[in-house]
């Protein structure tokens, strides 16, 4: 018999260990990323420096990080609500697209409305559209027993192509480019003071707080937490699990939709295909990194936004392909997921007495 290892279940899972494991996982993925840089012919340490400098090295860079963190944060907040119930919503990207479409529709249809009326209407439509897109997989799961992972994933592409269909077709601007006409001034969220960061940041603060309150102090938050731990116990306790599935998917979609509204209104001031920057997918990585906690989501959103900004600099300065950012994101998700194993189990050498 060869010497081997045994896998034992951990009796305790203290917070410091989870922290340590997440840190180790991120470091490992960064290390692997540097290795990739080296293979690609970029000096890894220089690359690392450019990445950090580009992301956090100047006021302009930090503002850029914040701007990118806003949509990631909202999508991730939504995704985390569903994940708490162990409903795997991979469809934030599509819900984001529909939210942007919904908001744009209001902006283009009622250009004359005053700002204080138009913006709330756009938010409402964005949430309805995103929430509706989230509700479909929930209902399909209940009625037809479909897997929500597959359905949400596929519906992303439907939503993205629908957005393209509109901007290439009915909503195309007179200029002929695949984009809508610029929004009327009443449909645009301005920037804060002298910075380039828009007021969407305050939306994030409020919504993040609301989600935190929802989970901590409301009965539904409690019911979602309990059902997420054990569906059988939830049924035993008379918790309406099926209704909760619909609720979390609608909330999840609405938050992603809100995020789509902010991007269209504040960042682009119009709808165009480039709005689909993959924030909805990054949101999944962020949610796992943050272990579904709203405050941690804020921090990880900022860090992953930093990664995106940093990689843009790598691309400009060192000609590293843009795909490097996505690769690094994927690496982080995989190492963090793998790290989950070490939170629950420990490995001990097999004793050979």
């Amino acid at each position, binding site marked *: 018999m060869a010497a081997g290892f045994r896998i034992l279940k951990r*009796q305790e899972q203290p917070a410091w260990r989870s922290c340590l494991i997440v840190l180790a996982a991120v470091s490992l993925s960064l290390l692997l990323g540097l290795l990739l840089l080296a293979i690609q012919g970029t000096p890894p340490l220089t690359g690392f420096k450019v990445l950090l400098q580009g992301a956090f090295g100047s006021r302009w860079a930090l503002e850029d990080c914040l701007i990118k963190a806003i949509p990631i944060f909202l999508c991730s907040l939504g995704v985390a609500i569903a994940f708490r119930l162990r409903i795997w919503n991979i469809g934030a990207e599509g819900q984001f697209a529909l939210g942007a479409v919904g908001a744009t529709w209001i902006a283009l249809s009622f250009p004359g409305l005053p700002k204080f009326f138009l913006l709330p209407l756009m938010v409402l439509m964005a949430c309805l559209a995103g929430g509706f897109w989230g509700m479909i997989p929930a209902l399909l799961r209940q009625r037809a027993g479909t897997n929500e992972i597959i359905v949400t994933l596929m519906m992303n592409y439907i939503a993205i192509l629908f957005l393209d269909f509109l901007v290439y077709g009915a909503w195309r601007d007179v200029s002929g480019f695949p984009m809508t006409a610029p929004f009327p001034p009443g449909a645009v969220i301005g920037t804060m003071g002298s910075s380039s960061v828009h007021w969407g940041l305050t939306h994030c603060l409020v919504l993040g707080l609301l989600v935190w309150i929802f989970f901590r*102090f*409301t*009965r*539904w*938050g*409690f*019911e979602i*937490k*309990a059902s997420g*731990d*054990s569906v*059988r*116990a939830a*049924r*035993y*306790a*008379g918790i309406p699990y099926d209704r909760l599935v619909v609720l979390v998917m609608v909330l999840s979609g609405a938050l992603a939709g809100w995020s789509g509204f902010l991007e269209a209104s504040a960042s682009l001031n119009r709808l165009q295909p480039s709005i689909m920057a993959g924030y909805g997918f990054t949101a999944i990585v962020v949610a796992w990194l943050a272990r579904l906690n709203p405050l941690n989501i804020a921090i990880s959103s900022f860090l992953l936004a930093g990664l995106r900004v940093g990689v843009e600099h790598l691309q400009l300065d060192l000609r590293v392909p843009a795909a490097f950012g996505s690769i690094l994101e994927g690496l982080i998700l995989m190492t963090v997921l793998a790290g989950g194993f070490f939170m629950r189990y420990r490995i001990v050498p097999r*004793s050979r*007495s």
Partner: protein
Amino acid sequence: MTNPVIGDQQMPATHPVIRLDRLSKSFGSVQANKDISLEIHRGSVLALLGENGAGKSTLMSMLAGQLQPDSGHIYLDGAPVEFTTTDKALAAGIGMVYQHFKLVEAMTVAENILLGQPRGFWLGKASMGRTVRRLAEAYGMHVKPDALVADLSMGEKQQVEILKLLYRQSSILIFDEPTAVLTPAEADSLFATMRRMTGQGKAIVFISHKLEEVLSIADTIAILKRGEVIDRISAASIPSASELARRMVGRPVLLQVNKKPVPTRQVVLKVAGLQGGGLRGIDFELRQGEILGLVGVAGNGQKPLVESLCGLRRPRQGTIRLLGQDWKHFFSRQTWEKTLSYVPEDRQGLATCPSLDLLDNFLLTTRGGFVRGPWLQKEPARARAEKLLIEFDIRPPDLQTFAWQLSGGNLQKLVLAREFFRKPRLIVAEQPTQGLDIAAAEDVWNLLLQAREQAGILLVTGDLVEALALSDRIGVLFNGSLAGMIERDDPKGIEQIPLMMAGLESEASSSAP
């Protein structure tokens, strides 16, 4: 059945291949096994008979190396051994056929058997098949080596499990309720295989609670109750299944609990013609102020009945009325208080959320009492729960403990504290004292007796002593229907309960198989 190798079946002259010497095992304050001494002989079948929770599986897990005894020794061929891992037990020739098969469905029979064997994969496909076929034929089994496991019947899958052990040349085979999943014909063929194995000198331990089977296959029978061997008998000395039933259930002893009579009032539960999912027509009524004990050997309809009553399973046929409302109406608008409380057997997976703390678990069914508008008011709940922890002596008395960190007894006390806090009008208690030490069990009994003043209680238990101590009436479940309903003050009827549990009376009255 005669066996030339072994000689006299009743009194094996050979020394035992396995001797268990005063094995004890506790989980927290619960003694699962207490000073158990047994001998297992080559060429003979030892049956372990006992209710769920009597300690059968703990005992066999120690023999198979999954658990280590707190005290006592295991002797293999007279030499003391320690099975610290399952590998060691396997290497010593001890193999277990589990109730839940551990097979790879997408592989063939032969592949499953050779899986994980040293040098197994280097055998060619043809010789692999030949080896397995030869082995199967030697023991009277007909499973095809190249069949996919996914296509096999339960009986055939079990044969694969047996072949896995035979291929390893295991000489002591433990069968954990092997007939539970088999058709009668498959069971017969299993018994034929078992006889061939004893004929080859292998030792067999057969865990069951089906009396007829035990009598037909076993050479010796050990009866376990509450962790102890209460009887060890040679099968030949048992004249009938009813005698065995009497020994297994024990003399209907009366436990003295302070039980003052309570006048019965309105009907809180009425079941009529309940059928489907293993039930074959169940009718009874339960009134406020009485305890109805439902006894029976596990697997005779307890699970579908309780799940239907508690809203986890929609009744297919027949009606259930709870507190005067029909089933659908009752479960669609449930209140938290003064209603149905269900104390399930499965405390860890059903009654509690393992990874939530005790406060959240307390709120699981009582949350309705701490809600104001959308808000869940945790502070008043915390104060209440803290009081209950002390009142029920739940350890550790710390609401931040996770449910999975609690011992079985403490977890049960938490569930009971929570459920009694709801001032139930109807209680369904399923094996409420299983796994509790005697002091804790007495507390539970007194709680149930107290609760009876406000509620009707359905006590589903495998323990006749418990049922007799508490119940006003006792219903006997057998094969999905009520084999009898006996008043507590009918000594003649009570005498009959062990027989009814074994399904013997119904067999006497109908000759059809």
